[in-house]
């Protein structure tokens, strides 16, 4: 066989291998998403049914829906504080495991355990810890006459509670990634800095941290895009409350679709979230392509 014919038949083979996955992705993933876009242009309601095409009216309605605008702020607070806490804590633990207690091999396994707990269980565990009558935290402080506030009854408290639960469950993910990156950094750099008389703290901030930037950016983007999807934590811990204080955008889409039966309007909220996720994914994919080719 000539090389050209060989490569033509190879191409056919590779295309045949791509086919099942392409068809399946089309059916399982692209088709529902197309359905979401189509529904977002209607005012389909589970109870009232269809009343014709309405074009982009749903999207115009979103612009002055104060509940939607509020949901975006709530999402921003949950994602912003959450990602910040997870990245800082995850990095701190990774650096600690790498530099301070590198002999604690088993500790790494223990730190990873919270990451294994399914989200519903995470939400229930932290709900119990934030329930004043039940919580050992409250009981402990009661001994000293200190009353711990019931966090889930105020907006900022409830948002903090969700951020804490999410951070507990997912900082191990950041830790694993950062630890892997740290172990890829040559120890020679640390030694050279030490010989030059730099303190360990200075070495970390001036040498190690800059080398970690690509990893930290990547992991922060990953966590960010995941925090947009908060559902079990909100559903279980606060049910969107108190009032609507923790109704982040994803949860608001659920409320509109499945509680208020406004399928079309709910779909338009989902479209907005999807477009946002697409933009963030684009940056991750581009970053990943560059980073792994370097």
């Amino acid at each position, binding site marked *: 066989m000539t090389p050209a014919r*060989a490569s033509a038949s*190879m191409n056919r083979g*590779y295309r045949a*291998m*791509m086919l*099942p*996955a392409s068809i*399946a*992705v089309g059916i*399982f*993933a692209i088709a*529902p998403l197309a359905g*979401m876009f189509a*529904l977002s242009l209607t005012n389909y309601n589970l109870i009232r049914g269809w009343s014709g095409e309405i074009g982009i009216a749903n999207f115009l309605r979103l612009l002055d829906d104060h509940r939607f605008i509020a949901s975006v702020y709530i999402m921003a607070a949950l994602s912003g504080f959450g990602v910040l806490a997870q990245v800082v*804590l995850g990095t*701190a633990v990774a650096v600690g495991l790498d530099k*301070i*207690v590198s002999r604690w091999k088993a*500790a790494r*396994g223990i730190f*990873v355990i*919270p*990451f*294994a707990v*399914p989200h*519903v*269980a995470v939400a*229930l*565990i932290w709900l*119990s*810890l934030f329930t004043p*009558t039940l919580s*050992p935290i409250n*009981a402990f402080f009661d001994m000293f006459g200190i009353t711990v506030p019931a966090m889930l009854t105020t907006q900022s408290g409830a948002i903090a509670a969700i951020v804490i639960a999410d951070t*507990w469950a997912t900082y191990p993910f950041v830790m*694993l*990634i950062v630890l892997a990156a740290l172990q890829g950094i040559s120890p020679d750099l640390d030694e050279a800095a*030490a010989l030059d008389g730099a303190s360990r703290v200075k070495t970390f901030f001036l040498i190690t941290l800059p080398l970690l930037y690509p*990893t930290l950016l990547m*992991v922060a983007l990953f966590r960010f*895009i995941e925090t947009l999807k908060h*559902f*079990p934590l909100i559903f*279980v811990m606060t049910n969107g409350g108190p009032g609507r204080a923790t109704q982040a955008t994803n949860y608001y*889409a*659920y409320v509109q679709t*499945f509680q208020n039966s406004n*399928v079309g309007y709910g*779909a338009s*909220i989902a479209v907005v979230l999807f477009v946002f*996720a*697409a933009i*963030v*994914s*684009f940056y*991750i*994919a581009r970053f*990943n392509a560059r*980073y792994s*080719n370097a």
Partner: protein
Amino acid sequence: MRDSTASYRVKRGLGIAMMLAFLLFALLPVIWVIILALRPAQQLFEPIWRSPLALTLDNIYSITRSDFPKALVNSFITAGCSTALALILGVPGAFSLSKRKAANKFLASWLLLLLRMAPPVGFVIPLFLIYIKTGMIDTYAGLIFAYTSLTLPFVVWSMWSSFNQIPDELVEAGLMDGASMWNVLLKVAIPAARPGLVAAAVLSFLLAWNDFFFALIITRADTMTAPVAVMNFVSYASVDWGAIAVASIALTLPVVPIIIIANKYIVQSLGGAVKG
């Protein structure tokens, strides 16, 4: 060494104290849920230190008589089938993406990431309507298909990165010897990528195992999965904390060994997927 000074020892002590604090933060909620699982109902609302020895297996016993074990089985069936489906469909596709010379790989990587990252609420709205029309609400098939929208992009993405680590020459040598492409995949590429394959399988299983949202919307009593069934212990009248704690542990136990063994693959599945 300049590091042997007293101030170094103080700093190191502080560092170790900080690590112990982090360790406590990671562990105390786990210990708490184990205690909660073993607390008798009468002592539930009094501080643990007042009656530390009041322990019982009643909660475990009562869970085994509820619907929860059936929900665990449902979770195993749906997560397992969806993983098998995703592997069968996705592995050849990932091989093709990794070894084929021409193809818009960036676009494929973006699409796969996006499908993995997109909010499930978008997938579930049309699925819900179609399932209602076709009677697929509360069926295994319906839930397995829904999970495949999560697991398939994940399997393709992570196997793509595993196949990238096999040298192209190995594949080309197989083809030169006259083996068909499918044979090369089965006999050369998959064995060489076996650790990656195992990791993709278990992590994809976990993706479905952890799901709450799809199951909440498209299952009812028959195929309800464990994460949704736990919520049955939370009712308006009362919250059965003992049962919730036992159920949460049951939900977590299968995952712990997997996560500890697979933690290095978690790193792999995030980065370094796409390499020309």
